[in-house]
């Protein structure tokens, strides 16, 4: 009897944890798909779209929430009118783990082979090399790839890196320039030892040099670090004027450790969401972070496009609280939507032809996004994306907009950062110079080295 009682109690505790988790924090994966047809029109068809996301991490979870909003917007309107046919969207997010090859394979095979999804939009956290082995032979239009150049190989036909980070050097350059103007001479970049961290360090250090800063050796730490004191001690031992925490996981903990040992120089953090700002203030106080610069993805107060504002309202109404973490990473949806609307087709080859040939920039939740070719990789299709970005500065405990880094700046400064100006000039001479969204920029073709 005692054994039975304990077994039951244990099951109750575990069940309580699981059920507790279903209360408000976990959201269903699928879109609603509740359209009910329109009068005498034939019943809408089903358009299956999906994405591979790291649902155990906040960003993936937020992208899923945004896609539910996008899908609801269309389905509640009776469906998506494409080429005279009406489609209700059936959306599924597939958990691919966190850069986990086995989980990626399981997820992509489930999506493509079992569920028959033909459009995988905004993959992130998957292993692109694994995803490609399923999506390419099966003709699945795919947006993703993250940090991997594998998707940009000329042999790959149906994948676009969207959103991508290659054309992202502009935002750091603008920040570092600002720091130089404020008196910084030496800079150190601090990253976790991951693919993103290593890539980020390269990017940041190159931009630091371009901005005229003396670059100190980067400090990397293991992702499973349990104590950040040694990291701060090592950083301060280099005596930097500027500590760069862009692309750095655990930036709150590193900031606290810096505060603990009395570091008083400039600090640039990576994306500062309201939650991160609140955490920073909680740990180090509002005064310590006064004047810190950060990138951010919160469209409220910056976006002016009526459709984007309506989507923000829909998100807030659906979830109660606005969380900006997924706004940038959901940007591929708008590129896909534009392609479908412009071609009025779901035919893979028609969409490919449109996307491959310099489609116009599209407005996303986080400003404009535009596809460009990668002649440096021998790929002359427009396969890689550049996205505008926002920079803010902490004033009186609030992150206030300071600057907009345009798509043009992101594109041109990145080309300069990677030392590709001559190569791209030759490409532009042959294929034509790109045009950009109408937004203020700081860098022009003439500024390229």
């Amino acid at each position, binding site marked *: 009897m*005692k*054994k039975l009682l*304990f*077994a039951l*109690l*244990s*099951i109750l*505790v*575990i069940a309580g*944890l*699981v059920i*507790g*988790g*279903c209360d408000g*924090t*976990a959201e269903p994966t699928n879109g609603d798909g509740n359209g009910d047809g329109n009068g005498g029109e034939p019943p809408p068809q089903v358009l299956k779209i999906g994405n591979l996301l790291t649902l*155990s*991490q*906040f960003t993936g*979870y937020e992208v899923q929430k945004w896609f539910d909003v996008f899908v609801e917007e269309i389905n509640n309107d009776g469906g998506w009118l494409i080429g005279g046919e009406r489609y209700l969207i059936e959306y599924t997010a597939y958990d691919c783990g966190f850069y986990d090859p086995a989980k990626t394979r399981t997820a992509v095979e489930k999506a493509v082979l079992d569920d028959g999804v033909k459009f995988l939009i905004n993959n992130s956290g998957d292993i692109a090399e694994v995803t490609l082995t399923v999506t390419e032979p099966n003709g699945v239009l795919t947006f993703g790839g993250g940090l991997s150049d594998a998707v940009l190989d000329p042999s790959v036909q149906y994948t676009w890196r969207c959103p991508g980070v290659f054309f992202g050097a502009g935002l750091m350059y603008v920040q570092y320039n600002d720091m130089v103007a404020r008196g910084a001479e030496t800079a150190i970049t601090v990253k976790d*030892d991951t693919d993103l961290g290593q890539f980020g360090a390269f990017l940041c250090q190159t931009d630091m040099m371009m901005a005229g800063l003396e670059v100190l050796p980067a*400090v*990397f*730490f*293991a992702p*499973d*670090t*349990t*104590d*950040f*004191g*040694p*990291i701060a*001690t*090592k950083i301060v*031992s280099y005596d930097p004027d500027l500590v760069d925490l862009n692309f750095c996981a655990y930036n*709150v*903990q590193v900031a606290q450790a810096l505060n*603990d*040992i*009395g570091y008083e120089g400039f600090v640039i953090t990576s994306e500062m969401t309201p*939650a991160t700002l609140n*955490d920073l203030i*909680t*740990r180090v*106080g509002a005064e310590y972070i006064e004047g810190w610069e950060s990138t951010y993805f919160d469209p409220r107060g910056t976006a002016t496009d009526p459709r984007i504002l309506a989507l923000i309202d829909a998100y807030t109404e659906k979830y109660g609280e606005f969380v900006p973490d997924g706004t940038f990473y959901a940007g591929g949806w708008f590129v896909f939507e534009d392609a479908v609307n412009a071609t009025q087709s779901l035919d893979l080859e028609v969409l490919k032809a449109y996307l491959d040939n310099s489609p116009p920039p599209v407005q996303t939740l986080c400003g404009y996004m535009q596809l460009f070719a990668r002649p440096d990789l021998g790929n002359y299709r427009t396969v890689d994306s550049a996205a505008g970005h926002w920079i803010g500065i902490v004033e009186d405990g609030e992150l206030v907009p300071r600057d907009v880094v345009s798509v043009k700046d992101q594109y041109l400064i990145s080309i300069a950062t990677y030392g590709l100006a001559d190569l791209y000039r030759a490409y532009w001479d042959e294929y034509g110079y790109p045009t950009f969204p109408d937004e203020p920029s700081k860098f022009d073709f003439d500024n390229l080295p």
Partner: protein
Amino acid sequence: MDTGLFFQILANGLMSGGMYALVASGLTLILGVAKIFNFAQGHFYMLGAYVTFAVAVTLGIPYPIALLAALASMAILGVLFHFAIVQWTIPHGFFHTVLVTILFGTMVSQASLLTFGPTQRIMPALIPGTLNIGDVALNWNKLLVIGCAIIVMAALHFFMKTKIGTAMLAAAENSDVASLQGINAKQIFWIAMAVGCGLSGIAGGLIVPVLGASLAMGASIFTRALLVLIIGGMGSMSGALIAAFLVGVIESFAFHFVGYLNLLVIFAFVAVLLYFRPGGLMGKPLPIPGE
């Protein structure tokens, strides 16, 4: 390296060691007494952190009470875990218990993800600011962790001198002989589980004001606790205490010189140590199951 930097690195290491000591002590106790290698120990630490956060921040109850809540809830969960799952596997051998603890840890991870979500939880520092001694800056909250670690280890030391503690040691030595002398070994095992898991719970609670609570914290600390266990000697409490601070200090100095490869230095140290002392600093080599 100047003196100030040297002592700062040393102090960092000692503070890390304090955290490791708390988690490793629970793991050591359970292994030493019940001969159960609890791979879910880190998960109890993580749950303890979340319980503390929930009680102290969400409910607004004073922190010391939140700590006690973490201690009590993890002790109870440990006992439930023991009676519902672990005790049935003990007769089937060491590996069966190892497997069920891994399974339990996986279940806790998934349930925690659903319950708490993927975001980390940050709570205000208990004591803001730092203690500055010369060029060395010491975070008050980390000092609190070290202080608590020493107090908890001392309490554990005296607990082991009590009747129950002595019975635990006897059961750890030979449970069959202990049973012949009137010691209820089964009772001792679940008490060890309660104390061990409770220790991890309170460790998690103590660390929340320093690092916050996150889902990954259990796995990260478990790696260090395992190293502490191996270096200190399987089941040796005093060995665990020494090893915890040793691991912390080596890790801190190694980070300064080799950066994120610092764990490799510790692994190399473990390899050399085990070559000369297979049982660790203060333990005896465990018999290899099946031999």
